[in-house]
């Protein structure tokens, strides 16, 4: 693919899902799914267990054929042009589907050969992916003898051997220790900087919030949110909310501020003496809130738009219980 073609593709969404529905017998796994994943972005895919995340990933990677609707990868329909899509895509499933009787090098060499890479190219590619995943020293080890974290690295190296434009990673950090998780996230950042589009499904929300440019929240087979991570964290249910930091803990701060017109709610932030102030924008603006605080005799050392933690956003957007 030429650089011009790549440039024109980078302007379009890498993945597009329109009106996708999928059922397993009578169970409706996906109901009218619509979302786009921008090209060269790191896109988080979150949802409770059984929400339909893996089904969506399997539809994108051509393992499942959409029953209704359309799934496109770089403008190609996965139901029709599935071989071309597979050439540009790497999927790492949530289970360890590996030939564990092979050595690391045999395993990667096998997939490189299966993707049609000639033997001269393979040597260079394998050296590169082994270095990127920091597995060069383990090339002659049997996969079976590797730790879970290392097996995960080998799995990641495997999806990179054909130099895919899109990586689909289903729960890549599950079961990894904190060090292995952090190292994995570093590798993902490096891959993003290389211009890869990465779709990552995970339950570790704090890391997703830090890592992802955009996010899709799915629950009970329907999309609850799709957009930038920033918008999701900024987004409040009804009213704008600001976080106010007084210079010292103050008794009666809630009462003092609560008397001001337009203030809807004041909540203490757990673990600090900060408060979250929600207000009605039709009656008061953020400057008004700050002025009211100062008028009440509070020395303010910090005042900024409050962000939800992704955990909170997740809880707000998804429903309790399993379906």
């Amino acid at each position: 693919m030429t650089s011009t073609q790549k440039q024109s593709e980078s302007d379009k969404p890498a993945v597009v899902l329109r009106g996708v529905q999928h059922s397993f017998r009578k169970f409706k796994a996906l109901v009218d799914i619509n979302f786009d994943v921008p090209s060269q972005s790191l896109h988080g895919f979150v949802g409770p267990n059984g929400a339909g995340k893996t089904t969506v990933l399997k539809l994108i990677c051509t393992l499942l054929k959409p029953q209704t609707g359309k799934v496109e990868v770089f403008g190609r329909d996965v139901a029709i042009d599935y071989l071309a899509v597979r050439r540009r895509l790497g999927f790492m499933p949530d289970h360890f589907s590996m030939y564990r009787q092979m050595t690391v090098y045999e395993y990667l060499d096998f997939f490189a050969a299966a993707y049609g890479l000639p033997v001269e190219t393979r040597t260079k590619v394998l050296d590169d992916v082994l270095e990127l995943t920091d597995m060069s020293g383990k090339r002659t080890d049997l996969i079976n003898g590797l730790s879970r974290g290392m097996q995960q690295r080998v799995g990641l190296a495997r999806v990179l051997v054909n130099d895919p434009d899109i990586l689909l990673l289903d729960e890549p950090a599950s079961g990894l220790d904190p060090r292995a998780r952090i190292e994995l996230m570093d590798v993902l950042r490096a891959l993003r900087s290389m211009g890869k589009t990465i779709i990552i499904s995970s339950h570790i929300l704090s890391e997703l919030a830090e890592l992802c440019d955009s996010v899709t929240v799915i629950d009970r087979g329907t999309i609850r949110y799709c957009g930038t991570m920033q918008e999701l964290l900024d987004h409040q249910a009804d009213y704008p909310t600001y976080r106010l930091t007084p210079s010292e803990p103050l008794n009666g701060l809630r009462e003092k501020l609560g008397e001001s017109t337009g203030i809807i709610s004041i909540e203490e932030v757990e673990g600090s003496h900060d408060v979250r102030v929600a207000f009605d924008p039709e009656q008061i603006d953020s400057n008004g809130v700050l002025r009211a605080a100062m008028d009440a005799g509070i020395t303010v050392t910090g005042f900024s738009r409050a962000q939800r933690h992704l955990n909170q956003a997740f809880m707000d957007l998804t429903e309790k219980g399993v379906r």
Partner: protein
Amino acid sequence: MAVRGTFALVERAMRVDTRLARTHLIRLGFATLILLFVVQVQRDISNYNAPGRDVFRSMCWVNFFLLNLAGVSFFSTVITEEKEELTLGLLRMAGISPVGILLGKVTPRLLGVVLLLSVQLPFTILAITLGGVSIDQIFAAYVALLAFAVLMAGMGAFLSTVCARSSLAASLTTTVLATVFITPYLLRDFGREMYRDKEISVTTREAIYEAAETVAQTTPLGSLDVILTTGFNGNPLSFQVLVDLSCGVVFFLFAWLLFDVFTRNEAVSTPARGMMAMFSKRVASQSRVWNHAIVWKDFNFLTGGVTAVVIKLLAYSILMGAMSVMISKRVRTDVSDNVGATLMASMLTALIVEIPIYLSRLFREELRWQTWSCLTLLPKTTTRVALGKLAGVAPAFLPAIIVFVVGALIAPKFFENYLFKRIFIREDGWYWMLQYLLAVHVIVLLSLVVKWGAVPFGISVVVVPNVIFMATAGRNASNITLATIGVCTFVLAIFIQWLIIRQLKTLAAT
């Protein structure tokens, strides 16, 4: 606690068994099969001297055949399946003792076999009314078969306790059964030859014959013949029954005794590297994957690679060489024809056995280790991946083919006049080849849906209808009838091929 654990295991297994439609379908199929025997005999009743006995004889042999299949697949996996699923440790942690686990696992399977035999009872009564068989014979035959089932269960418990994998346990069961069945014939042959060469006296020959008869009477293969002779009035607790029950119990006791030794360390369930283990890591890292990567993978990891091919070729050559020497000593004329014919017949048999065994593992191993979805994500169609896998397995058949070709070169006339014409010119040769093709397809399809027993079940699915056909309408079937059935078989095989590809696509997404 042990008793409670055993009951819990038995109850669970029976509940699962009852919920499965497959269980009831097998029983229904079995009852239908026997009904067909009865209808056939009733239709041609004038041709039979003892129609009831003939019906019952057919039923007994079908039972015996199925008990052997059960021994190889159903009983030989009782403990190995827990080892492979890594659930044996959980059972031990639940406080169930070794004997509790063994009883809990073996009893439901034995009960399943007993239930299958009990389905036939109403029809055996029909056999009595048809005439030629007495209630004593029926009773004695069922006791013989049940004792054999106990032997199968005991042997299965023992072999699956000491073996790490189901495949090894099944192979050992097959070897033991084949040895027991073949030994009487080999002993008789040995005695006859030695006596002819004046190496032994009449008394020694008779002693060898006696030993052969004793071994033959340890399985229903020998005892059923005696039971089904007209005027049988023997004790149902025959020598075979006592030997089989005793051996079954002894096997079970050994399984119990050795249970801790062979199950203490729960090995991590992992695919075998096979003959590739013979290479050092250094060699492995230097050797490169072929451009046809799937062919490379299956050739090396499913069939054992070049090492396995060479070892198999040597083993076949040594075995066939020894047989050739024996034949050249025994036969005075046409030695080369006899040697060549033996080589060809033996290798043809080896191929007939090897092909379904390898093909049943072709996709099973990928599904077992959850690697199939990764293969299907390659930019290749499912058919192309499947063909690549087939090509990877094909070199495993080279040793048998090479020895067969040597046989054909030694006896070209026999090959041309007998084997080639019989297989490729005569209609029944084509008929049986197509039946084999169908059986192989059924085995591959079954290997995608059942965990174990695809080979015996696949063979039964094709062999049993053929046995019925040949025992009934097929006896006088014209060549046109055979050709029509052959064409239908071919179409059915193609349809199953389509089902296999469809199932493979479905399994990739699960």
